[in-house]
């Protein structure tokens, strides 16, 4: 958090945070408050061991309004869109869609791609890999 004191002050006074949360909810069509933080998504996520904060924690930060922190995390970029979380969630929250929502908001805000084509592995890649990476990580 970029606050002076390292404590999240509630209710979030930054109007921007609310706007971003609304945007994420609109883009994904999901209600972040439906999650009751059981953690089943994180338990089954294939990329969770690589992430800095867990998927359920991303959702938790959105719930309490720490939007800035969510926008800074690496976690949403490590998501592989495998839908395991959405398939298992007992509350029916489609976390894959929410992750996409966060990614899209970041891309649109920063107006900058997550990676540059030069950073790609220099070897023959199947078209499917190229296209999917570009679709997910670029504006």
């Amino acid at each position, binding site marked *: 958090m970029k606050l002076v004191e390292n404590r999240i002050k509630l209710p979030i006074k930054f109007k921007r945070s609310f706007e971003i949360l609304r945007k994420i909810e609109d883009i994904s069509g999901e209600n972040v408050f439906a999650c*009751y*933080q*059981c*953690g*089943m*998504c*994180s*338990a*089954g*996520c294939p990329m*969770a*061991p690589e992430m800095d*904060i*867990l998927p*359920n*924690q991303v959702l938790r930060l959105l719930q309490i309004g720490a939007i800035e922190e969510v926008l800074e995390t690496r976690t949403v970029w490590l998501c592989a869109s495998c839908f*395991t979380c959405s398939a*298992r*969630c*007992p*509350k*029916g929250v489609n976390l894959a869609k929410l992750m996409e929502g966060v990614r899209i908001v970041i891309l649109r805000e920063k107006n900058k791609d997550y990676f540059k084509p030069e950073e790609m592995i220099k070897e023959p890649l199947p078209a499917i890999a190229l296209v999917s990476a570009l679709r997910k990580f670029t504006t």
Partner: protein
Amino acid sequence: MRIGVFVCHCGRNIAGIVDVKTVVDEIAKLKDVVFCTDYIYLCSEPGQKTIQEKIKELNLTHIIVAACSPSLHGITFSRAVEAAGVNPYLFEMANIREQCSWVHSHNPELATKKAISLIKASLAKLRYSQPLTPIKVPLTQKVLVIGGGIAGIRVALDIAQAGFEVYLVEKSPSLGGRMAQLSETFPTLDCSSCILTPLMVEVARHKKIHLFTYAEVKKVEGIIGNFKVTIEKKPRYVIPEKCTGCGDCVDVCPVVVPNEFDQGLGARKAIYVPFPQAVPLVYTIDFENCLNTEKLIICEQCFKICGPKAIDFLMRPEEIQIEVGAIVVATGYELLPLEALKEYGAGEYEDVITSLDFERLISASGPTGGILRRPSDGRIPKSVVFIQCAGSRSPEQGRPYCSKICCMYTAKHALIYKHLVPDGEVYVFYIDIRAAGKRYEEFVQRVMGDGVLYLRGKVSKVFRHNEKMVVLGVDTLSGKTVEVETDLVVLAPAIIPSKGAQELAKMLKIPVDEFGFFSEIHPKLRPVETTSPGIYLAGAAQSPKDISETVAQASAAASKVLSLLSQKEATLEPIVAYVDKEICKGCGLCRRVCPFKAITIVKEDKKRYAKVEPAICQGCGCCMAICEENAINVAGFTYQQLSAQVRALLEDKYEVSKKTAEFRKI
């Protein structure tokens, strides 16, 4: 007619929106209204006293109370006016709160007009009201209890001890239900059988209790006070009076099948008692698995060895008819089958078991003699993972509710495991801990501090790796994903109603909720009564609960039954249908639509007409709606009364042709 109208303020609830004074002035002007006043809280004692005094003082014959909903205080005021000498069916209640001030709070002018309109409608109805007398039917002072678990046992004993006869019907061969399958009960860790079997024996010995085990309720007719119930006694092929419970037959029976009492983890013969302390201690032949069939007897081993000659292969189902005044439903619960839990292996892994399986494995009378062994290879597990909320709290799977007892029994299991295997490792995956009863929180805290690792996070997947089970979970409190290699996985599956609950509900005509649990009238104030008078609920059949609550609820149901039986007659509301023989054509439409089968078509002196049995009729009005001749009416809600009400409500906006009943906008 001398009508008295009382308009309630209900504090600010009504008076804050509706202009009560205007209402009183307008109503006082109407014909036959002798007295009209307002009062701040009519339902209070002084309020009711005011009504009663005015009745006596002014010789009022009809009363209207304009206040809240009749479903809230209808009975309060009915009783008040009755005590003052006015027939309660000459009393009408106009709802100017829920249907007026509360919904039109932004438009006081409209609310006031509507309040006046509603009172006028009540008045119009009253003009056609007739005094009615409640119907009294004789009350059979016997009770039927369906279900022989701890709930049914407690109800039966409470009622029998008060001196009334009880029929207790249980569909399995013995009493005891789920409590008999348990090893210890939380939080005291009492031995379950030790505290249950004395009660079971008391039931069997009690002179006032007629016990029918291995029997089911097949048909229920009638209403409160007079239920006629058909019970089917399934054939045991063993004569109960002759069987001494010696067990010689078991030794010679060649058929071995999984034992339901041990959740399929142990075996029994085709001739069996479910467990050694079964009540009654009579053997039963499971004819599905016995080598014999109805037409062919090939194996007579048990018959030959039975000393008292108690085996009878020619037994057939026997039907018994009983008459009772009240019924208590105590059919208990089941656990969600593993097949429904796909992430946890859907029943494919032997070492993924349910809590009830675990209970049998640690039970001294269980399939492993109290030594906890893994189902796959019989080794003693050195590590166990308990997964709570398996199937509960999941709107996606159609079970959003919490099963209530799992947090407590999982803690109990963890504690017992540590006693059995002191160097074993225990992990409990939970989302929340629900330990709200007396000394429950202390119990869980004791377990948590005792070398049991509680991890907060729901397990995502369980699979097999060589001879171990691997659990992929998470600890949200520390933010780490975890993986546990363990010997045994115990799930806490959702609690679901017993098989057959739906059919029973249809038979008794009582509602169930969307999950199949029987519905109570009001969860807070009337938790043991159903919408069918005379039918009560007790135990987990109504919603998941533990033994303490079940016993409390069972005694509650018993007390309701006893207050019913303490009278010699049952009093029924006279809101029943009656037929005008002159107009009725005997077409039979009403008989077809009556959900309670209260109507028959009779022929008298060449005239066919419908006849309603008042004791069965529930006053639903379906017959009235369908009759083309308007020959059948429900007393207290006749066609005349209802159309007068409607006309009064529309009098400023529409005029109604008296001849054709057509409405024309003014």
